[in-house]
């Protein structure tokens, strides 16, 4: 971006230099074009940068500081307490708190669900849509629909579908002769599995848009050549399409890894009030909402970041290895 701007400014200067006697009307204190552009850029960038500084940088710095503090009820001030909050975090994860331990386990499980179930399904469906299988237009709408419906409506629709008396799933199962229908959302681990199922269903749309967009950019000549060579569809997918769109898949995979730390709305909406399906993000959200022991919650978030960020960076590095970047 900066290179393009510099080039643009240089080109303008050249233009002005070549026409020293251009017929521009003289103006009093008018700034030259370069300065005006600079002011424009500064003004345009100032607001987002200030916003980033206040709402991201300062907030995160404050969180890090708070993670090493505790509230002193007698003075009404936060005081330094070293690593006490972190010790509590790891003691609770280690088993002192069943709820925290469960939240961490649930959160970690979002990684395989997102990256090894949802993502491969998205790749598969994207490829089929690209190959224009019969009904692909309809499937495109079906897959994308959950992405444009508000999450509150979508979760309500999903859970009502499995309601024992109001939903449509149980009657169908009974008609098919299933006698023992489980409690979908009423007990662990069924409720957690249902949340995973929801995440897969609702998450396909966005992934499919990204991946099918990348596949459609593959030059037609390559696909035509493979067709002439008699390459099978499976081989075309695994040895041509996937390597060519690997950067997109890699990015989606890395984003999927972050779901371990970010999933919150789905358990909150699908299983309200349940402690079985908590996640790291939901636990922190509930804690902050109740305003109880913010330093501990800061330490919890920071500890998760310290553990998670290197893992995600290693994954990102590893994801860049299987296929070399190809430009087309």
């Amino acid at each position: 971006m900066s290179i393009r701007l510099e080039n643009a400014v240089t080109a303008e200067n050249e233009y002005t230099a070549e026409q020293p006697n251009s017929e521009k009307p003289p103006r009093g204190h008018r700034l030259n074009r370069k300065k005006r552009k600079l002011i424009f850029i500064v003004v345009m960038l100032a607001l987002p940068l200030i916003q980033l500084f206040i709402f991201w940088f300062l907030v995160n710095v404050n969180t890090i500081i708070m993670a090493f503090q505790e509230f002193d009820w007698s003075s009404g001030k936060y005081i330094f307490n070293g690593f006490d909050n972190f010790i509590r975090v790891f003691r609770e994860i280690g088993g002192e708190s069943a709820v925290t331990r469960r939240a961490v386990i649930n959160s970690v499980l979002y990684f395989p669900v997102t990256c090894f179930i949802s993502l491969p399904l998205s790749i598969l469906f994207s490829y089929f849509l690209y190959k224009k299988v019969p009904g692909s237009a309809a499937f495109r709408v079906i897959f994308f629909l959950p992405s444009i419906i508000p999450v509150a409506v979508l979760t309500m629709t999903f859970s009502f579908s499995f309601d024992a008396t109001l939903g449509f799933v149980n009657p169908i199962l009974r008609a098919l002769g299933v006698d023992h229908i489980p409690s979908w959302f009423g007990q662990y681990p069924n409720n957690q599995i249902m949340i995973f199922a929801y995440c897969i269903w609702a998450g396909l749309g966005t992934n499919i848009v990204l991946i099918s967009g990348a596949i459609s950019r593959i030059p037609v000549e390559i696909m035509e050549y493979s067709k002439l060579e008699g390459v099978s569809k499976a081989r075309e997918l695994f040895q041509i399409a996937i390597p060519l769109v690997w950067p997109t898949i890699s990015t989606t995979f890395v984003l999927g890894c972050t779901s371990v730390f970010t999933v919150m709305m789905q358990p909150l909406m699908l299983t309200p009030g349940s402690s079985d399906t908590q996640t790291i993000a939901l636990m922190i959200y509930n804690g902050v909402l109740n305003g109880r022991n913010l330093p501990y919650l800061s330490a919890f978030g920071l500890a998760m970041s310290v553990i998670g960020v290197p893992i995600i960076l290693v994954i990102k590095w590893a994801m860049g290895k299987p296929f070399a970047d190809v430009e087309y």
Partner: protein
Amino acid sequence: MKNKVLKFFVLIMAVVMALSVGVMFAACGENSPYDLKIAVVHKEYGQRWINALARKFEEETGLVVEVEANPNLQSEIPNRLQNGSDDDLFFSHGITWELYAAQGMLEPLDDLYEMEVSDGVTFGSKVLPQFRTAARFNDHYYKVAWTNGTGGLVYNKKMFEDYGWSVPTVYSNPANPTCDPNVGAVGLLELCEVILDDTNGDVKPFVWSSETYYWDYVVFDWWAQLAGVDKIEAYTQLGSPEVFNPTTSPEQKEALKAWKNLIADHPEYSMEDCAGKQYTAAQMEFVTGRAAMIPCAQWLESGMMGNYDESTCVMDLMPTPFIDGAKTDENGDPIAVNYSVGSTNSGDSILIPADAPHKDTAKQFLVFMFRDDNLKLFSEETYGVQLAADYSNVTLDDEATDFMKSVYNINANSQKFDLLSSAMPVLEGFLSLDWPIEGVQHYASLVADPNTDIDALYQSNYESIVSRWSEWFE
């Protein structure tokens, strides 16, 4: 052309930014267009009540009141307190007000509690005693409790009348299996059988949802019936870990066992898979007459207003049936108790920020609000919800619904209790008093596995509390 577009764009941006800055400074200005700004969490109780009170206050005083009804207020209050705002009064659920009081962000309300609401009646004496105690922190009053919540079993009064069922007064009375009030006290357990028999199972006794905390309103009443409200109050003081000893204080455990016997051991008494049902679905099942009772609280009627047909459902709240072993009075009659819904940990609160621009007017409004005529107005506009105030001089109109009257009667005829506590482990988030240690309810797990050993569960919790007690209080 390109330059013109650019100039136009810059002009628009400049106007927008100038307007933003202007609005920002206008908001910070001293000449606010109102004399009192009230921010109210907009949830179960709606906003009719605050609008009605605000308009009446305006008429009486000539002051201008601005009302903000905001569903997200609870999460916004910390920021508004820390960063300053033009709010004079907050009405919200579940704020850890002690945290902000300790930091000097809340206005001390000692003078408010001394102000006169009517001749010779101070504001403090108008607030119910247990809420007055719970409003103190570091020897000062910092909050006013908002509502005196009333919960329990809501039943379909029309259905009960149509089938000739009597409202149960005791948990169980095996001597009266037909639930004939002429034979003896009607038992809840026996009534469930009668409901199933009379309706061939088409109507289930109960519907409830995955938000199982609604059962707290029944189970906590049983707990307090067994323990007595004094023992519950001592429990909230956390004098020693022995308050959790299931041998010397088995009441909560026994109440939970009674629930297990009623619900987990009798799945036929509830609609199918209630533990997996959304709250709205459970409410729909109740108002459409598919279940006779639902555990809920005082907001059910206002929450469902306009969404059900009175030819199918008329709501009423029953006093929680007495459990065997309930404490009795000097006449040997069991003592009626009722849990103040929403009174766990820090509870519902009315707060005045320390830097509120119109603190005196805010206090004036609270005094106005706790006048008998306005207590009544609040209840009418919320269809039965009561402020945390003495309603002994308030009489409901004849037009009040059955539900409103039932809420009123339960509050008037029960010893109210709560689980409010300013003990350090509670404030620090180490301990939850409703379901120690971590606030995990056991209802869904008991339904999933009715063989769960409740005794072992409580013993294990007690041992864990004992081992961590000194650390919490160090």
